[in-house]
């Protein structure tokens, strides 16, 4: 038996490490276990490195269109290896940053595969057994395999790509985001299965760099969680860029050949076609990492692959908590972070509330960007709201035109009765940076009145947020 911790967190992704730091701030003796990398998928194989890739694509795109801005750039080209190298460099830098933050907060890092042997009971702390891992080398100063004791054990093990039987990733012809993020060479053609944020971002990246891209989506709409109108506008833009999109379509069979894959795609009403591509990217969602943690043996309630919690991270077993992807959707880094903080503050006995999942924003960093928070128009109607909808196009915004980004829309949805902002949905340049204005508004429970009374700086894209609100109440100025 070695040290006894107040809090031990399994998984050093964005949910885990943020929780660990908050735990340390609250005075808990804290440890965090990981088997592969500090910062988790987000920082190493997700959010961050893809943003680096997309930034390269964006600049490449701008250089190709330099003449539109009165500039000249000749022999514009790219080096995929250099793009990947930059992306890995960004991850590496942030990865080191997480290690530094944990150290600064005196959080012990334990390296290996963790399994919970016992939950705490009364005064007796729980036990976590950590086994050695070969996945990655331990960071400097990390503790190794062994048995660790902790009063509170928080599972924050995240998620991994969902695998469709028969279309198992092979790292060569069938990729997940891991391989798509570090291509050794630029594929000429790509088939992207799934049109959620991950699928669409890679489609956008590879298309911008010149690949032939086809996106297959099972549902009738791409970006299925987004507002239908916004997704529709995005789809038009993608198609204009040359991305081929098949919705209501299902990949039934994939045959691998020497030069690529041939996918059988059912497109509804009994029709089917074969689509060939050099590589298939499987981006059909993620599933929680709940196995081999010993949760079953402890009787932790799990429902369809998700650890059941009370919204504050508490499972049915006292002393065992779960946050982030393993505790259910939306499987987003910022949701995990927030949930983790609420969980540890609850453990501390602070006054907390389960997070309101209706106020978690979502961002997709394709070209054009998509950002949203709250209810879509369809969802709001489905929930019985009598709504007012405001819209404002990028084409009527001075800053957007000056930027050369006249395509896009800011859409707001209000409850007619109370003036509550139910949802905001945007497509267009930089909207991922804009959405937070509406998130704050929702969190503070502003009504249309306050938003109308708020001064938005000119000239900015944010003025469209104001105008969209005005439009919902028939007071729009610039259209």
């Amino acid at each position, binding site marked *: 038996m070695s040290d006894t911790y107040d809090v031990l967190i399994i998984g050093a992704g964005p949910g885990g490490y943020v929780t660990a730091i908050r735990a340390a701030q609250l005075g808990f003796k804290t440890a965090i276990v990981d088997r592969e990398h500090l910062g988790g998928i987000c920082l190493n194989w997700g959010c961050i490195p893809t943003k680096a890739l997309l930034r390269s694509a964006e600049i490449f795109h701008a250089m190709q269109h330099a003449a539109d801005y009165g500039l000249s750039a000749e022999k514009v080209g790219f080096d995929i290896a250099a793009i990947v190298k930059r992306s890995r460099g960004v991850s590496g830098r942030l990865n080191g940053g997480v290690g530094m933050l944990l150290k600064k907060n005196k959080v012990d890092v334990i390296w290996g595969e963790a399994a919970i042997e016992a939950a705490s009971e009364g005064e007796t702390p729980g036990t976590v057994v950590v086994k050695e891992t070969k996945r990655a080398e331990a960071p400097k100063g990390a503790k190794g395999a062994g048995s660790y004791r902790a009063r509170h054990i928080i599972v924050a093990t995240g998620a991994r790509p969902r695998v469709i039987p028969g279309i198992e990733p092979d790292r060569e012809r069938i990729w997940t985001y891991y391989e798509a993020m570090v291509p050794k060479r630029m594929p000429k053609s790509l088939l992207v299965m799934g049109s959620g944020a991950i699928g669409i971002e890679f489609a956008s990246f590879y298309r911008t760099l010149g690949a032939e891209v086809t996106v297959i989506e099972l549902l009738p709409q791409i970006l299925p969680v987004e507002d239908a109108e916004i997704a529709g506008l995005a789809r038009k833009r993608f198609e204009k860029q040359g991305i081929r999109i098949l919705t209501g379509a299902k990949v039934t069979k994939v045959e691998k050949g020497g030069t690529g894959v041939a996918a059988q795609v059912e497109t509804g009403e009994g029709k089917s076609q074969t689509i060939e591509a050099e590589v298939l990217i499987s981006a059909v969602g993620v599933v929680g990492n709940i196995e081999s943690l010993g949760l079953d043996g402890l009787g932790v309630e799990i429902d369809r692959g998700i650890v059941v919690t*009370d919204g504050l991270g508490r499972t049915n077993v006292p002393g065992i908590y779960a946050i982030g992807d393993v505790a259910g959707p939306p499987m987003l880094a910022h949701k995990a972070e927030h949930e983790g903080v609420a969980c540890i503050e609850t453990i501390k006995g602070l006054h907390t509330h389960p997070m309101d999942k209706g106020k978690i924003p979502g961002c997709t960093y394709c070209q054009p960007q998509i950002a949203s928070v709250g209810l879509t128009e369809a969802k709001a109607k489905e929930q019985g709201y009598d709504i007012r909808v405001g819209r404002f196009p990028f084409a009527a915004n001075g800053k957007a035109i000056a930027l050369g980004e006249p395509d896009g829309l800011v859409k707001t949805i209000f409850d007619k009765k*109370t*003036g509550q902002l139910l949802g905001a949905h945007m497509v267009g340049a930089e909207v991922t940076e804009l959405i937070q204005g509406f998130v704050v508004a929702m969190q503070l*429970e502003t009504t249309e009145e306050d938003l109308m009374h708020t001064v938005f700086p000119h000239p900015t894209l944010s003025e469209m947020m104001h105008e969209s609100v005005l439009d919902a109440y028939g007071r729009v100025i610039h259209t």
Partner: protein
Amino acid sequence: MPINVLMPALSPTMEKGNLAKWLKKEGDAVKSGDILAEIETDKATMEVEAVDEGVLAKIVVPEGTADVPVNDLIALIAEEGEDPSSIDAGGDGGGKDEAKAERRSAPEQSGKRDKPANDGSGGEDRTPGGGTMSYARVDEAPDGPAKDARRGSAKGSDAASASDGGKRIFASPLARRIAKQEGLDLARVKGSGPHGRVIERDVRAAAKDGGAGAGKAEAETKAPQAEQKAPAPGNRPDAAPDKAAAKPAAGPAPSGLTAKQVMGMFEAGSYDEVPLDGMRKTIAKRLVESKQTVPHFYLGLDVELDALLALREQVNAGAPKDKDGKPAFKLSVNDFVIKALALALQRVPAANAVWAEDRILRFRHSDVGVAVAIEGGLFTPVIRKAEQKTLSTISAEMKDLAGRARTRKLKPEEYQGGTTAVSNLGMFGIRSFSAVINPPHGTILAVGAGEQRVVARNGAPAVVQAMTVTLSCDHRVVDGALGAELLAAFKGLIESPMAMLV
């Protein structure tokens, strides 16, 4: 101590007025209800009315004085036993008169007090209610204040006015709007947001349960007053735009007498005061709410227990024993009652329901609450899906829940929900009683003691074991015939208990 008469405000925005006329002279006897003076503004005339008895000792502001600031001292009344001539008005030079200074700031003070005064047993209450304002009696005004609202509110409105007086209420815009739409007084809603900010969920909850300090009931008492155009007394510097929020005379709606009123009826020192803990407050709130909002009716029925007691004995005797010879379970009659009620609800599914304001929620499973008396109150933990559980499971669960209820270690989710409850006072020998429904439940079953009774059977007396049960029903959900059907199903199960074993 002389009583101060202050310049009243006719409207929330009024800052000053003219003292038109004194209707009493110095030295005149004054009794409650007498008109002391007339005040004019550019809009209206109002009368200043006395609420105290005494002698008008001193007129501080002579009649005909224009632009007298609101809350300025205009006269002094000597109380009974006081020598009016000894009272020095002090006028503006009365800086030595601390009482006066204090009184003059009284409106602000009372406005700042958080606690309703009727809760503050704190002694003399030197600023009796909105006392200062109760001198104002308004005859007409653009807003058309009611004649008597003021007097009625003189003491009672203390709580109301105190709670929102000059204090800024931190509330989200959405909460403010919903409160307005629902006719809730925000000052009465407890905020759960950062630093006590009132947010949407608080007003939604307040609107829903009416009680919760928000007083939907109060909002309702307001409505008629607003119709007769209750005045917006001058002690509302925040001048909320909604007229409906003009102060009515009501304290927290459901409570009857104030603590002070009740204590006034007993000799001081003849009792000890017991502070309320959270559980007691909850019991008080929930059950008052229940009795006031839930239309109860009661159905009584006798059930015979001979078969059940025989079965119980047999089953308990057959319980497997561990190595210490302790039986694995020991079923109580109450365990059978829980199970029978759960199964009866399955047989009469329409009764497995609760009222939800604009709809009825009907449940698939039988979640049965069981009242557990504990030191200082009671808890009602819920046996979930009781219809699916074996008697021994129910028994074990009950033992665990009751044990933790006694140590107050139940989690909220363990005592929330359910469509019905069992309250058993049989162990105290109670023959029958009627229980108060525990909202949101639709029913509650009150169980009396099992005892030997003589009944007529086939024309001859027979001795049987029997108990009386009384089902309290929420008539909005469970009508008489439906309740009877549920009880009949319950009786059938208790009297033929083998059905509970399968």
